[in-house]
């Protein structure tokens, strides 16, 4: 399966600032996704990153708060904007090599807000 590198692995940020998380894959993939994982809760899909077009957001997530880029088939970024303590979570990138394969995940970014 693809090797997925996610940066940073962790960060501590001040309220009101923004953090951009990078996801790099070692091979071209069809789909890239961004998830949030909070303690005691199931993984929640934030959006599907579409190459060359705007991301597709799930209910409850908006582009102004979670802008996403996907300039090519191996790279995507998620920005978490105007950070508040409620944004403290693990953010995960996942990829799907082709339409008949399951998703594989990066190791996540652990974000804490002061």
């Amino acid at each position: 399966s693809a090797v997925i590198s996610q940066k940073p692995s962790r960060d501590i940020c001040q309220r009101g600032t923004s953090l951009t998380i990078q996801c790099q894959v070692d091979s071209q993939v069809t789909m890239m996704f961004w998830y949030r994982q909070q303690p005691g809760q199931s993984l929640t899909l934030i959006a599907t990153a579409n190459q060359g077009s705007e991301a597709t957001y799930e209910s409850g997530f908006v582009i102004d708060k979670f802008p996403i880029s996907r300039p090519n088939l191996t790279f995507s970024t998620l920005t978490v904007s105007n950070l508040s303590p409620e944004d403290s979570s693990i953010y995960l990138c996942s990829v799907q090599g082709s339409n008949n394969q399951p998703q594989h995940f990066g190791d996540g970014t652990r974000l804490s807000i002061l």
Partner: protein
Amino acid sequence: QKEVEQDPGPLSVPEGAIVSLNCTYSNSAFQYFMWYRQYSRKGPELLMYTYSSGNKEDGRFTAQVDKSSKYISLFIRDSQPSDSATYLCAMLGRGFGNEKLTFGTGTRLTIIP
């Protein structure tokens, strides 16, 4: 009611025991079933996936799906301390690339040496 229910544990068993991890679901359209293993401070790692009902075996791991009962299981034989992790079930209906995954909350497993 959640679409996928999974006992969060924690579950502690002695080394060498057989472990049974389970999920129930309510959506009868689900056809693809996955188990992910997540070590502390790591991302979920795909262990196995199955399509429709039946069993699938991979080494010490067996995935079992009973669509009539809307119940899936992961069995771990001869459990090892290295199996200590959180196990997440996930499922979807129309196939990869056609809809989003629905996850359980995960079961935290500890194997006691």
